[in-house]
Structures are given as structure tokens and as C-alpha cells.
């Protein structure tokens, strides 16, 4: 700092060698203002950057857990939902996992193109949102596969009602960019109670039920039963 003061004294000294005290004080004041401005600028930049980075982190977290096409939670998010759901099941809450697979989606993609296929998936997601209750979890697992975790209700009646409703809603005709199309859906469900072991088993059971439903024909739903395992194995 003394070097700065030396320079200020030189600047405030006239040709005759006389120090102009007012000039010196103005220079000193200006130096304080410069210093304050720099500190304020640094503080503001630090604060804004932290805010921006926090916002970016939020966006990244959202992108990591959501499907960009439909906006639904993705497979990663579903895995976390399922882990929490199993914990709730172990504490006595009844729940079911329903896996949904569209029929003839590949044919739509192949014949009408991916843009129409994408639009169809968005419409399917909208119908799913409208069908699933607020407290339940919904996700796109990838491709034309979706999943729901249904909480509460009398089992298996509640799940039967939801599975039937899902098949009905998703099988209603679609009109996309002037194209009329009928795309069905199959649903496979697995129920979980306090004796549920882990997420993987629950999903495997739901998958087996879905496999059976698709095997039995389009627009079908099935709930996992033990004999399914035996017959598939």
C-alpha cells in the first residue's frame, strides 16, 4: 500500500515541489472507492455464480431423473421410488408394481416415422398421468415401457381396477398429426406386502406377469401369481 501512497504523493506534487494536500486526499479517496468497487464486484460475482451453479445442479438432477421426451421420471428415478416403496411395504403398507408395454409401437415408428412415434409416446404419457392417482409413482422405463407403483387400497381389487383402466385408456384410438392409430397396451402387476423381499424380485414378478399378458394377446393385463413362476420356469 505504501507504494501506492508514494505514487499518489508524486502525482499530487506540483512542478515546484509543493504537495497539494487536496489533490492527495482526492487520490486517496478514489483509491478507497476503487478498492470497495472491486470487493463488491467480487462478492457479487461469487454470490451469482453460487446461485447459477445451484440452479445448474438442480437442472442436472432433474435431467438425470427424468425422461427428456415425456417429462416423466426415468428408470433411475423409478429404481429409487421402488426402493422406498419396498420399505413402506415392509412396514405394512400394501402396494403393487405395474409394468406397461405398448402393443404395435414399433409398427408406428417403422411406418410413420420417429417423429410420430415420439408424439405418440408423449400422448401415452399424458393418458398415464391422467389415469394414475396423485400419490402413486409413474415412470418411463425406456422405449415403449412404462411403470406405476400403486400404494394402498384393498388388494388385489385396487390393482385389478387400475390395470384394467390403464389397458382401456391406452387402447383408445390416437389421432396424431392427422394419423389415426390404434395402439394397445399390456399390463403386468406384482403385489407386495410385509413379506416382500426386495425390489428386484418384485420387478421380476411384475415382468413375468407382463410376459404372460402379452403372450395371451393384445390389450391384456395379468397379476403375478406364484404358479406363473413355476410355469415360466
Amino acid at each position, binding site marked *: 500500500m505504501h507504494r*501506492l501512497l508514494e*505514487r499518489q504523493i508524486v502525482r499530487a506534487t506540483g512542478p515546484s515541489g509543493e504537495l497539494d494536500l487536496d489533490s492527495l486526499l482526492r*487520490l486517496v479517496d478514489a483509491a478507497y472507492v476503487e478498492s470497495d468497487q472491486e470487493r*463488491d464486484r*467480487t462478492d*457479487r460475482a461469487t454470490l*451469482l455464480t453460487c446461485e*447459477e451453479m445451484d440452479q*445448474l445442479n438442480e437442472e442436472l438432477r432433474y435431467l438425470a431423473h427424468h425422461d427428456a421426451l415425456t417429462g416423466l421420471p426415468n428408470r433411475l428415478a423409478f429404481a429409487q421410488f421402488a426402493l422406498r416403496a419396498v420399505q413402506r411395504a415392509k412396514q405394512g403398507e400394501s402396494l403393487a408394481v405395474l409394468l406397461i408395454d405398448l402393443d404395435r409401437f414399433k409398427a408406428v415408428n417403422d411406418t410413420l416415422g420417429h417423429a410420430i412415434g415420439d408424439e405418440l409416446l408423449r400422448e401415452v404419457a399424458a393418458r398415464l398421468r391422467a389415469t394414475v392417482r396423485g400419490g402413486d409413482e409413474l415412470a418411463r422405463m425406456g422405449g415403449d415401457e412404462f411403470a406405476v407403483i400403486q400404494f394402498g387400497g384393498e388388494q388385489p381389487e385396487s390393482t385389478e381396477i387400475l390395470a384394467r383402466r390403464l389397458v382401456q385408456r391406452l387402447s383408445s384410438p390416437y389421432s396424431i398429426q392427422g394419423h389415426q392409430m390404434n395402439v394397445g397396451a399390456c399390463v403386468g402387476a406384482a403385489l407386495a406386502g410385509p413379506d416382500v423381499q426386495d425390489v428386484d424380485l418384485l420387478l421380476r414378478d411384475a415382468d413375468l406377469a407382463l410376459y404372460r399378458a402379452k403372450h395371451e394377446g393384445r390389450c391384456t393385463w395379468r397379476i403375478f401369481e406364484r404358479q406363473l413362476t413355476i410355469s415360466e420356469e
Partner: protein
Amino acid sequence: MYFGNRDVLRCADRSNELRAAYPEAKIIGCSGTRSIVDNTLEEDGIVAVALGFARTSVRIARAQVTEPSQSRAAGEEIGQTLFAKDLAGIFVLADGLRVDGTDFTAGLTHRIGPGPLIVGGMASDPCDYLETLVGADCEPRSGMVAAVGFYGTAIRFTHGRASGWDAFGPRRHITRSNGNVLYDLDGKPAFELYQRYLGEEVSAGVSAAVMFPLLISPPDRPEQTVVRAPIGLENGTGGMTFAGHVPQGWTARLMRGNLDRLILGAADAARQARVEQPMSGRGESLALMVSCTGRHLLMGQRTEEELEIAGAELGSESKRIGFYSFGEIAPLADSSISDLHNQTMTITSLVEVGD
């Protein structure tokens, strides 16, 4: 060579006095926000240096630019005029507001090729951003580009360049730009981002905005970074003007300066220039210093500290002269090809070696 306050340089008497004192000399110079002579910062006057060589010849070239689109052609014209087999180096000056420094440098380097060192800077003004002046064996005038070429094997150039600014915050993408006008970063108006970061200082206009230059790089060569400083805020079209191209598709990060880091940057530039100097048979050397106006705006009254520390590194046998510019022309890192830079201190040391 001379550098000085624009309003003082407008007076024809000054050019006439210089010419009268050195009737046979090649005379080149420009306006600067501040001029440098040794450790002193000159605000209102003119500084000059007379160079004499025993075994080196010099040649001057100049061209007039009436609009930025002519900049590349002007660079090529200067290059065409100065190119020769024994060309050792070029010191170039260009109007800092009417010449597109990126295009001008590209035209010049295209004609000269990778051998001779090309250094210099963009003329500046007292930060009213109205007019800058360059002269080359004529009265300094607006729209001028000029260069002096040094020829022979006795002249040795060494060079250093450093910044001291630090990139911070997220990487952004330049999603809309045209030449040196930046419109959008990440799909949002760049000016809005600057408004937020400037806060109340936004009323100070571009003098405040230069405190936040951009570090830009091409997407496929992230190591090839260039600093770009704003020289014009909201220009009526929503764009911000920078002292150099801000190509669409490139990555950008905001930068901020810390006084101590900037000052150390100047020392680093001087060290680079000194280390490369020939150790034997050298006479007096001249250090041409071109530092960015943005550095001066940030450093304020501490600006002379970067001159002092650079001078200490260069040594007492080195005379120093230069100016604060609207852009520095110097080789890219690890390259012999020059480009336009912002917010850097560039030091070019000239020395004529003996037999």
C-alpha cells in the same frame, strides 16, 4: 514510435514537431487509453522513442479501412507490402474501433506465414469509445492500420504474453453471434447475464463490463483459449460488441480479475520475453509493452505496479514504451501464428545483436 492521448494527437503540430526532429525517420504510433514509458503511466501527453539500427532495415506499410468488413483485406495488403525473405518481425497498430482486429490479424498472418513474429495492438481512446487514431508517416487518423517491418539477421525479437484473469462459473455456449457481436449465451441474451453480474455498475456501461471478459474456446480444441473483452454494451439489436470475434458454437466462461494476479501476470509476460533474449553480443534493448485497457480499468491507481514489476523482470538495460490498448496482437500459446487477444499484457523485446 509514439503513443499518446487521442485528443492531444489530433493536434497536427505534434506530428509536425516529431517530423521536424526526425526528418528521415519512419514514424509510427497510435492513441492509447494511457501511454507507458518505463514505470510511468502517461494520461494526457505523448511518449516517444527513437530507434537506430546498425544492421537492421525497417519499412512501413499502411492502409485505410472505412468499414470493418475491409479489415482482412487491409491485413493482407500490409502483409503483401512488408513480406520479404529477410523479414524478422512486424509491429502492427490498428484502429481499435473501426477495424475488426481478428480479421485484420488473420489477413496479415495469412500473407506473412509462420516465420516472422507479428505483434502489436489495437489503438484505444480515453474510454469514450468514439475514435482511435493511428499514424504511419502521416498525421494520426481514424480507420488507419499500419505496421513496421524489421529486416535482417541482426534484429532479435522475444515475446511474452500473460493475462492473470481467472475464469469462473459455468461453461456457457455461444448460441448466437455474428463476428465480434455476441447475442445469446445458452439461448439467453448475453446482455441480461452482464446486467446481473454488473449490478448497479451497469450504469457505468462498458467500462464496468470489461471487468468481466469472456474466455472462449472452440468446442473441439478447448485448450486453444482466447480472451474477449466487451467494448460495447447493448447496441440496439440486443447484441454486445467484443474486441474480437466471438464465434457461434464456441464455449465461453466469464472471467474476473484479481489485482495481485494481474500484476503477477505482467511479471510473467516480462519473464517470458527476458528468458528468450540472446545472452551475448546484445546492445540496448527496447521493450514494447501493449497492455489491455480493461486491465487499467480494473487496476486503477495500481496500474503502475504492473509496469514496475515487469520493468524489474526485464532489467535496467531495457527501455520500455507502450500503451493501453483495445486488443493485443500476439502469437497464440504454443504457436507461431498471431491472433487478437484481450485483457493481456504483451511484451516484445527488440535487440540488435553484434557480429
